[in-house]
């Protein structure tokens, strides 16, 4: 094993990464673009080009197949597969998530959900938590409709999503997590089965329906619908909340956006670059691969550090700064290549085109109650909560 000859970062721990990964990324870059982290048992990639290369070259780096935590949690999901199997399922799902169907079908749903959630949120009054009381129900309601489960209460969508994510991360095999996951799977499977029966032969644009029309068998429809549920709640929730936080930290930039100098879509791209909701993707080297002078032996597990790539100083000037006017350049907030996030257009529309403008128009002076918001998490990173205030009749 050449492991003892490669740049090594024996100090990196998951706890550090979950607390604040960015100082860790800076230290890693000082060691080298490809480092071995013995405590994690992973090679770590911090450079944007290297991260893109790994995702683009599935002949060299495959999705981990053995003992896939995704399969264990949700079944035969496409994210646990390589080509060509993955591509068949992905192509079946894409028609529900293409930008045109987002604009022509789903956006109207996003707008209705946003107005509905905002009404309730306004009723809670200043001090309400934008993360828990707006972003969460809004993301879960949107997801339910796009997946094809419009009659499932958003609270169920959220509970299933949490159960699936917890099961994916359940390396210690906590029996309570496994039991919650079993219940979530049973409930979600039953709801999906009911919808498959209702949607048979229809031209419905939802994910379940387009998968049926593409001829995917029921077990794959179920698994991939559950994959969407697992991956479609907390990410848009976190991005929506992170944006409110970031804009509040930069009132000049918020004012420029409000004045129409920059778009909320620009805000979106900068928020997800600066603070992506997912910080790592994993691959396994199929063969010995040399990258930047470091050989990763066949079988090595490799972490693509999306949050580090998005602050690669070779690609972004002053990468730690939040700058909405930054020229748009490729970032890795959604990954890249065949497994790139399928929901990115839905997220862009629901958050940037619908939610933020509605919130800032509907809640004048919207701003966090205090400045001490602390991001947390590595696999999923975001603000656990963000109480906000705004001008009301009483406060004007």
């Amino acid at each position: 094993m050449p492991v003892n000859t490669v740049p090594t970062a024996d100090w990196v721990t998951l706890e550090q990464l979950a607390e604040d990964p960015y100082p860790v990324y800076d230290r890693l870059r000082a060691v080298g673009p490809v480092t071995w982290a013995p405590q994690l048992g992973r090679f770590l990639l911090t450079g944007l080009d290297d991260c893109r290369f790994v995702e683009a070259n599935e002949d060299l780096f495959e999705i981990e197949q053995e003992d896939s935590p995704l399969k264990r949690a949700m079944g035969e999901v496409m994210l646990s597969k390589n080509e060509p199997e993955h591509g068949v399922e992905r192509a079946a799902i894409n028609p529900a998530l293409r930008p045109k169907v987002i604009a022509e079908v789903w956006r109207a749903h996003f707008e209705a959900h946003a107005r509905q959630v905002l009404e309730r949120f306004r009723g809670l009054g200043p001090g309400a938590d934008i993360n828990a009381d707006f972003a969460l129900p809004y993301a879960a309601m949107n997801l339910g409709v796009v997946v094809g489960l419009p009659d499932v209460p958003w609270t169920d969508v959220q509970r299933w999503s949490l159960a699936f994510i917890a099961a994916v991360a359940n390396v210690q095999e906590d029996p309570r997590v496994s039991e919650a996951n079993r219940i979530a799977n049973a409930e979600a499977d039953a709801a999906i089965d009911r919808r498959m029966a209702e949607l048979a032969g229809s031209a419905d644009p939802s994910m379940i329906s387009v998968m049926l029309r593409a001829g995917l068998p029921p077990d794959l429809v179920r698994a991939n619908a559950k994959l969407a549920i697992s991956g479609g709640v907390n990410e848009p929730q976190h991005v929506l909340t992170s944006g409110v936080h970031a804009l509040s930290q930069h009132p000049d930039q918020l004012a420029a956006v409000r004045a129409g100098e920059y778009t909320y879509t620009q805000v979106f791209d900068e928020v997800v670059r600066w603070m992506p909701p997912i910080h790592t993707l994993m691959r396994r080297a199929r063969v010995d691969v040399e990258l930047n002078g470091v050989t990763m032996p066949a079988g090595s597990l490799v972490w693509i550090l999306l949050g580090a790539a998005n602050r690669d100083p070779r690609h972004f000037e002053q990468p730690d700064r939040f700058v909405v006017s930054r020229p748009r350049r490729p970032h890795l907030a959604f990954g890249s290549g065949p497994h790139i996030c399928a929901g990115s257009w839905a997220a862009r529309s629901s958050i940037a085109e619908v939610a933020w403008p509605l919130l800032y128009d509907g809640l004048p002076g919207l701003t966090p109650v205090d400045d001490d918001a602390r991001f947390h998490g590595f696999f999923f990173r975001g603000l656990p909560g963000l109480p906000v205030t705004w001008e009301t009749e009483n406060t004007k």
Partner: protein
Amino acid sequence: MTESNQQERIVHQADAGSVVYVSAGTAPRAVSVTQPTTAMRLAVEHGVPGIIGECGGQAMCGTCHVKVHDEYLGGLPAPNEEELDILDVVITDRDPVRSRLACQLPVTPETSLIVDVPDTQY
């Protein structure tokens, strides 16, 4: 169309088995096709600037927009519904005839093709 683009389009011809990528302000880049692929993959594998291909060729992202030179349009398959979706909704400086997604343009060792690469893919 700018005058400089017009000039570039007149002076270049692609040999069989090559794709020429023309970007404003830099020399045109001719890349040989040794095996069947797409104009996006060929560009990314050879580091042609300006073609990103974020989604890996699914006609999902709209970051491999090119404008095909008129004389080569006839040799290409018509855009399918997915490609037209992206061209309709995502591409901001679309040419009604010449705009294509490079990921949907098959190229082989028999192909010759010249495309303009836009200044930005966003």
